């Protein structure tokens, strides 16, 4: 029962990644693409958490943490590059 619920959640998360990918392809300015990147990386944190629950391994959560740190840092770096602050 609970597995079915999590599978539904995984499918919706994947759909959300796909829709953000659409914005990444279309986005007229680099800022639009960066915000799509941000939303995708945050959704991927949820996706990794779902994967770790389905495989019942707590160790996968560490990967999600590193993922979060690097996603945040990537957005900061691109923003600082765009506003000529490096």
């Amino acid at each position, binding site marked *: 029962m*609970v597995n079915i619920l999590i599978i539904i*959640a995984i499918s919706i*998360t994947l759909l959300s990644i796909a*829709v953000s990918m659409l914005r990444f392809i279309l986005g007229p300015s680099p800022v639009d693409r960066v915000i799509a990147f941000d939303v995708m990386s945050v959704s991927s944190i949820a996706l990794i*958490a779902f994967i770790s*629950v389905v495989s019942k391994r707590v160790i996968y*959560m*560490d990967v999600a*943490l590193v993922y979060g740190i690097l996603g945040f840092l990537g957005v900061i770096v691109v923003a600082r590059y765009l506003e000529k602050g490096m």
Partner: protein
Amino acid sequence: MDTNILEIIGGSIAIAGSIFLLLGSIGLYRMPDAYNRIQAGTKASTLGTILSLLGLFFIFPSWFGKFMVLILFVLITNPVSSHVLARAAYHIMVPLTKLTQVDKWKERREIDESRKAHLRKVKIQKEGE
């Protein structure tokens, strides 16, 4: 029986979280300019991730620490990164949509610049004398 009910509650919360994630990306797709996209994307992805992790916490209560760390981290960093990005977007003049009503910041900057130009003029005049 009890754990079963907890698991179902957790799964439903996780589904609610993923629905918020989906809404955020739909907002990302539909909004007309970069600032509104940042609005929709940030809010929905923050709450979506938090709710998903909270729901999974009901399923595996013994992983409390890891979920808590991730929730705190997302809650702290996500607004900061979106603020920095929006500021960058404004400084490189990504256009606002036509629906925009007011732009107080631009008015303020124009006032500042005209005042500075005025001061410069006065200074030059004084030096000339």
